[in-house]
């Protein structure tokens, strides 16, 4: 565990994973997208709208997966003070936010022909929306201080607090939803056929590999940003020392 606290050791492993993740994502997208969007049969009830599903479900999956890793990174940072943990959390938060937004947008586009409305106060939709707000709050606080280290620490506390709160939010929204309106929508309303599962799993794999690849890319740029900042700081320090 502590071996990974060293950025060089961490990046050696991450850089070794990167070509595999990026390559696998490319292969899975090349196979998965045509299967999901063209050759898979339209659903007997939903018609072609079912294809949105192949983007929507992986996005929602990534949005939760990323929050999980964000919370773990935050906890690791608070417990062991691993500098890489905060860099990792910083790098992955926007990825999570974008996939959450994507899940919401595709859900809305799917909802319009299926439910007759872009937005329904369904329990899942509502907790996904709140997850987006928590992501945005996380990004905002990580960036809100003059001293980036202070931002890292504050964001880590928020990440852990959010992970305790998210299940409570989800549960309460579900309760609220069932008491407020009769559930018009049943997710088990259609049979999940093999013809749906194949493209779904291809896209799930593709999205996951893509998220890993993007995360490593963002890790690299975050580390470069830290190096740049340190170089500038030492330049300023040298200049002020010379002036004295």
């Amino acid at each position: 565990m502590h071996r990974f606290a060293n950025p060089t050791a961490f990046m050696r492993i991450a850089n070794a994973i990167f070509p595999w993740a990026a390559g696998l994502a490319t292969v899975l997208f090349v196979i998965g997208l045509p299967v999901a969007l063209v050759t898979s049969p339209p659903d007997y009830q939903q018609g072609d709208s079912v294809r949105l599903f192949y983007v929507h479900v992986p996005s929602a999956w990534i949005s939760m997966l990323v929050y999980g890793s964000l919370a773990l990174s935050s906890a690791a940072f608070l417990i062991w003070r691993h500098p890489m943990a905060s860099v990792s959390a910083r790098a992955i938060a926007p990825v999570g936010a974008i996939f959450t937004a994507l899940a919401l947008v595709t859900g809305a586009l799917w909802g319009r022909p299926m439910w007759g409305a872009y937005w329904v106060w369904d329990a899942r939709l509502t907790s996904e929306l709140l997850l987006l707000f928590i992501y945005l709050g996380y990004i905002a606080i990580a960036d809100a201080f003059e001293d980036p280290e202070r931002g890292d620490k504050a964001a880590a506390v928020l990440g852990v607090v959010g992970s305790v709160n998210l299940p409570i939010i989800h549960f309460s929204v579900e309760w609220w939803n069932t008491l407020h309106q009769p559930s018009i929508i049943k997710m088990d309303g259609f049979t999940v056929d093999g013809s749906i599962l194949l493209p779904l799993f291809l896209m799930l794999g593709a999205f996951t590999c893509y998220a890993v690849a993007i995360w490593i890319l963002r890790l690299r740029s975050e580390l470069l940003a830290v190096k740049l900042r340190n170089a500038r700081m030492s330049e300023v320090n040298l200049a002020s020392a010379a002036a004295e």
Partner: protein
Amino acid sequence: MSVFAAVLKRDLALALRQSADSFTVLAFFAIAVVLFPLGVGPESNTLAKIAGGVLWVSALLAALLSLDRLFTVDFEDGTLDQLVLSGEPLVFVVLAKTAAHWLTTGLPLILLSPVLALTLHLPGEGYGALLAALSLGTPTVSLIGAVGAALVLGSRRGGVLLSFLVLPLYVPILIFGTLSVEGAILGVSVKATLSLLGAMASFAVILAPWAAAAALRQATE
């Protein structure tokens, strides 16, 4: 424990001497509630239907406005550094400050709420549940708010950021608070929703001071 009593006494004394602060929060609560009938119309059936939700949302916003001053003044004049350096358990300091915050904002909000509920034509059955739900829910509001307030200390755009962080976390309180009031009006047992509010309060009283103390330590480093 002596640090708890000392900080609580100090914060209450400060709040009493600057009672305008608490008064402003109450005034905000009243104005926010009054805006709703002006917005949706004076029809008493509509108002009765939304009364519980309006009171809860306004109470949350009012409490949120007051969170800013929970740690900021102490942070700026250095008292917070002294408290951290004193070696006393910071968790009790947070707990005391939060308790003082609740006594000077949460409690007055609860006491004012029945009067405002009258203006919204809340049905008679709802009052007991409203008071019970607010009494169980507002301590959690102060506790979660303390975490948020400690996190944004010394940040740029603190106030807006604070509401952004804290409001999503308030959603469960809002939901069960409003459901309690609605349930009571419909004649359903509200034991379950009130118990959940109580559970969240007990949960928060254990975890929130710890998180807020960690945040305060970072802020004063």
